């Protein structure tokens, strides 16, 4: 009995000393910040996971260059509160797919028995005239999304992005072997105008492949009053810094390759005029 008691006491003492010696005091704010973070460990912030991000926030003492798309601006101001500093200005980015090559828009279709992977689908043969730039339909982006913001549109054979849920982490963009997904700033007050096509083939070939292909005609470039659109390599691109989301290019595009997401905007020019 005595022996056991002494042994127990000694063991307890050793445990206490060891705990004291190897005690790591963690900044309690790290835990608080982690509570705010989504905990998806998506890596969109550029860190290994949410814990690393929280540690970095505490270490840096300010939020320069630190932004968690998952937490959003509300979350970031929460983190700023924890740190006792003023929240910085944040940019909300949303992902969009630069392809509208849906089952009905594509004129030349592909019959493959793929394994549900875009990387695999990309290596397989494509029929003559098929758009080699567009969506491969393997769903890699959907698998990559940690915020349940992407879903498969069975009817169109394309992914769809729920812009409300999208936090702009860019995981889908990294997963897409065709580099179809781009992150663009979503302005709260207007829509975001985008070129939803990646086809760089010459106009005739692009048009043959898909009804909604950018044929590089340059009409949008001429229409834009702000010089925001440039056509290079048979593909239009919009400079987000210059775009005012007036919508004239959307109305003018002969193949509806230019479209918008976010708030619905009324085109200022009638399409039929």
């Amino acid at each position, binding site marked *: 009995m005595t022996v056991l008691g002494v042994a127990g006491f000694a063991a307890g003492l050793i445990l206490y000393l060891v705990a004291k010696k190897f005690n790591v005091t963690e900044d309690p704010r790290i835990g608080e910040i982690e509570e705010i973070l989504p905990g998806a460990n998506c890596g969109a912030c550029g860190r290994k996971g949410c814990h690393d991000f929280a540690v970095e926030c505490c270490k840096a003492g300010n939020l320069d260059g630190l932004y968690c798309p998952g937490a959003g601006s509300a979350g970031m101001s929460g983190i700023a509160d924890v740190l006792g500093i003023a929240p910085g200005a944040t940019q909300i980015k949303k992902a969009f797919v630069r392809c509208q090559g849906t089952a009905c828009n594509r004129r030349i279709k*592909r*019959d*493959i*028995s*793929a*394994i549900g992977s875009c990387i*695999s689908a990309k*290596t*397989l*043969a494509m*029929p003559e005239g098929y758009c080699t730039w567009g969506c491969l339909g393997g769903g890699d982006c959907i698998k990559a999304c940690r915020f349940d913001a992407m879903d498969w549109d069975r009817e169109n054979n394309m992914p769809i992005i729920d812009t409300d849920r999208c936090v702009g982490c860019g995981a889908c963009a990294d997963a897409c072997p065709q580099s179809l997904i781009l992150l663009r700033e979503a302005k709260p007050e207007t829509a975001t105008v985008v070129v939803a096509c990646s086809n760089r083939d010459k106009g005739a070939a692009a048009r043959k492949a898909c009804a909604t292909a950018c044929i590089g005609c340059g009409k949008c470039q001429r229409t834009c009053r702000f010089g925001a659109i440039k056509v290079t390599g048979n593909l239009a691109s919009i400079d987000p810094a210059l775009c005012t989301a007036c919508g004239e290019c959307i109305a003018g595009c002969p193949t509806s390759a230019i479209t918008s997401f976010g708030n619905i905007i009324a085109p200022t020019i009638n399409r039929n005029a």
Partner: protein
Amino acid sequence: MESNRITVTGSPHVSAQRTTQRVMLNVILALLPAMACGIWIFGWRSAAVAAVAIIACMLTEYVCARYMLGRRDSLRDCTAIVTGLLLAMTLPSSIPLPMAFAGGVFAIGVGKMAFGGTGQNIFNPALVGRVFLLISFPVEMTTWPLPLSPDGMTGATLLSAMKESGVDASSIDLIQISLGNMGGSLGEVGAIALVAGWIYLTARRIVRLVIPLSILGAVVLLAALTGNNIAVELLSGGLLLGTFFMATDYVTSPMTTKGMLIYGILIGAITFVIRHYGSYPEGISFAILIMNGCTPLINKLTRPRLFGERRKK
């Protein structure tokens, strides 16, 4: 029109003829002689037990796959039939039919579907079912009807007789027991039929020789070292049934030849130890289940050698 019929897939563009379904049908075929032997020895009640166990397994498989995994075609690969048949063959023919049914439900439900269905289970489902019954209903599971006795006389198996009543091994008629004229579960008694089934599976290259030979080799070696009767050791109990049809189960056995060797030798050794030094008369079920649990570890330790990789000095 033309290009629509052409399919595009990744290579290779040909495949071997073997499918899971075909393999399982072959296993069933290989089990049939031993099953017939059981019916011949213990009467038609054996067939009823087998039918109940198979129905229980198939029903459980279908319900679980359909409503838990959302898979409709899981019965097609015939693995549930194999499990049911194997389970029945480890049961005494006198077992009450509801118990056989419960064993089948447990085997598939807990032994297989709880892990995620075909290919995901760690333990051999049929043995999980058998051990469940053995622990839950020890009396019914160890009441063995005597062979060729329609009046329901019961007795002990060879192993339990040897263990408990000290029957001398040398007094046993080997020819009689290899023909199945002994007490035991309905599938384990027909040694010749079991061997025939195994030879068929081996000739069709469905099972490899490594596991059965290493189990039997280990048992023979241990029996010889301890001065036991080798033939009785091999022919009695469920050793042959377990060795040929349960230890060789694809899902729960190791992948590489080296792994199979370790797995087989340890099954043989554990079986022998339980038989002679444990409290149960028969140990093959436990030995296989224990080694099933070790299979992931064995797989990890016996990776194949990468081509061209030099051994570290």
